[in-house]
């Protein structure tokens, strides 16, 4: 588990194992459409803060679905 012990000192950034992953042009094409600023913002949060943020987003998505007459998933 490389780097795990040092996680708490990295300000919310998780260690990345040194595993080489082959390049995939399709995956690379998707990268152009991803908002990196959101990633950078999330990396400044702790993992627990990221999950709390996800729950807030879920609540918002549920409200929007209800407003549109759609039953939220998992109900």
């Amino acid at each position: 588990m490389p780097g795990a012990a040092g996680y708490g000192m990295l300000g919310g950034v998780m260690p990345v194992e040194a595993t080489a992953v082959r390049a995939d042009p399709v995956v690379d094409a998707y990268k152009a459409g991803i908002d990196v600023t959101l990633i950078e913002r999330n990396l400044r949060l702790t993992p627990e803060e990221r999950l709390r943020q996800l729950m807030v987003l879920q609540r918002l998505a549920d409200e929007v679905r209800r407003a549109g007459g759609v039953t939220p998933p998992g109900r």
Partner: protein
Amino acid sequence: MTDFEALLRALGAEGVRFVVVGGVAATAHGSARLTNDLDIVYARDPENIRRLVKALTPFRPYLRGAPPGLPFTWDTRTVHAGLNFTLDTTVGPIDALGEIVAGGRYEDLAARSIRLELFGTSCLCLGLDALIVNKRGVGRPKDLEVIAELELIAAAAKRERG
């Protein structure tokens, strides 16, 4: 909304051995994508199955998507007889998986996980590289954008560490 805190606290309180995988693991690593369910891979030994059943029982698990009235009992016998359970609970959906494609079982995944403190519970979360390898191995078209984001997270994290 899925109450991840309630689910993780319950699993932790019973000492269930599990690894968080899937969308919540991606969120824990920094993903901005919306996901609805908690995916865990649990150890299949009898004691852990007993703990898993006890942890989730208060949330009245039922097979997700199954027609109402279908006989389903969430107990150790059911979990021993099955492997992967996609469940709805009173606090939201959870997938309790004995094994995942391109990832294997708990023992395989635990070695490639990191330990996180979430909601006062210490739990294992699949490592970022292992998550990418898993998503690539599954090979679903819908995961291509997920993989792209995870790779960007890995690159950003690497930059931030200097």
